[in-house]
């Protein structure tokens, strides 16, 4: 399962488990990788991402970023090393879009660097001064992604970043993820769209709190596996294809 690249893994999950939600899991991500996390509802994708982000205790196991055990990394430094995007984007208070994205720089002493670029990449410049609690669901998700981008963290953990986005913005986020990967970031993102999962280098398939399969999508996402894990019949057929102009 481990990638053969020499050097330090961006993310190492060794034997981490959460009672009732996640069985012991082994997962390694190298720098410069873009990995999709797929599985039915309740299969443990969000839990795994939260464990990887250090938001849930890893039980008897261990989580390490860039080879350093999480316990050795001070909280502020964690904010510089890893960005986590939650599945739900709910905002009680009306902070402006720009100020929420600016929170991504909290661990960098609120220097504001890269905020404008993050706004531009997520197509938020026109909304920068709007209060976040008045945005649509998809727009709020883009705000969270822009905040994650602004952290410039080498490890990016995104929980269903595409689910609420319209087709164009979803594709743009995938392009962005690809660029981050090429710049040496490690990305782990959960998603439900199996066709989009095919655009990624590798996928992790989860089922009932366990890692079921790992590898390139063409090899992993076989009709047999999809039938077994998702209970759907898959076949390749000509249909609608969308891409950025």
């Amino acid at each position, binding site marked *: 399962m481990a990638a053969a690249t020499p050097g330090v893994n961006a993310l190492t999950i060794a034997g981490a488990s959460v009672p009732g939600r996640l069985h012991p899991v082994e997962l390694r991500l190298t720098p410069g990788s873009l990995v999709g996390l797929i599985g039915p509802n309740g299969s443990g994708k969000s839990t795994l991402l*939260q464990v990887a982000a*250090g938001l849930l205790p890893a039980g008897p196991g261990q989580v390490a970023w860039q080879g350093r055990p999480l316990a050795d990394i001070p*909280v502020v*430094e964690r*904010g510089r090393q890893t960005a986590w995007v939650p599945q739900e984007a709910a905002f*009680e208070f009306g902070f402006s879009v720009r100020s929420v994205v600016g929170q991504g720089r909290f661990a960098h002493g609120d220097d504001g660097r890269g905020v404008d670029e993050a706004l531009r990449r997520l197509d938020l410049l026109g909304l920068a001064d709007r209060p976040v609690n008045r945005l649509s669901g998809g727009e709020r998700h883009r705000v969270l992604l822009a905040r994650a981008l602004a952290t410039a963290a080498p490890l990016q953990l995104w929980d269903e970043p595409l689910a609420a986005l319209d087709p164009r913005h979803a594709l743009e986020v995938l392009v962005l993820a690809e660029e981050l990967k090429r710049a040496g970031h490690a990305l782990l993102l959960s998603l439900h769209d199996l066709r989009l999962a095919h655009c990624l280098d590798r996928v992790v398939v989860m089922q009932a709190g366990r890692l079921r399969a790992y590898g390139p999508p063409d090899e992993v996402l076989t009709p047999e596996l999809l039938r077994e894990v998702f209970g759907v019949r898959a076949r390749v057929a000509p249909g609608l294809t969308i891409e950025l102009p």
Partner: protein
Amino acid sequence: MKPTWVVRAALPLALLLLALLVVLSLGAGDLPLGPARLWAGLCQRDELAATILWQVRLPRLCVAMLIGAALGASGLVMQAYFRNGLASPGLLGVSSGGAAGAVVAIGLGWSTVSLCVLPAAAIVGAFFATAAVLVLARRGASTERLLLAGVALNAMLGAVTSYVLSNFTLTYERNAQIVFWLLGGLEDRTWEHALMAAAVIPCAALLWPLGRPMDLLSLGADEAQSLGVDVRALRRRLLALSTVMTALATAVGGTVGFVGLVVPHVLRLLVGPEHRRLVPLSLVGGAGFVLACDLLGRAAGGLRLGIVTALVGGPYFLWLLRRQA
């Protein structure tokens, strides 16, 4: 987006308004004092004015401002903590907890032992209430849950107070003391009371630098944690500060409702949700709001502070609830 001049001028304007209220508050009363006589009194050059100011109006003024600042800031902290604009010390029952603690102390006759007993008892009571709210809000702090938890807590803590009033063998004076104190007021407040509430000042100083991490916390605990905020430490500090400040306000002023709800809310409407601005503003704004309510009550022929804040804050709260629904 708020116009930037409003945001920038907010704190200086609030301070100016507070200064004006201070002068009005010192000048108003049975013996109105003009600015010249006020100054003479403060400098001890006018004996009558000096007596009135130094013995009556100044301690009352200090107590009022400390209560207001404490409740305004507590409300702000609780709203950020529970990520709910309707959270406040009064509605969540923390004030009632402080009141119950203080009433027990008065009822047992402890309050005469030392100056510190009453505030200490109020702090203990308030912490009980805070702990109860935390347990109830663990599964989510929706408006309904918080308000219902508050209703239940307020009722239970009210029962404690009633029990002390009805079942303890109390002297008539002590009973009267409890009742008047529960109503929330600033009558007959002395320098002793101001001294009791002075611990609000270090609390405010400790709260001051927490504005920025409060921004992140108010948008989600997990998000804040992943962005580099030590959420557990921050939450502990915020809860301790807001509980102690609420308890101190209750210990010297009785139950004064709605300050912690109205003040942060109005300020957020004016300058936006950034806590670096809201922390100083709600301290100053709370002090100003309580002074203004006290002035109103005095102008209306001696309405107690708790009555005025409820008359002003109650309708505002109902309006908020309607808007939120």
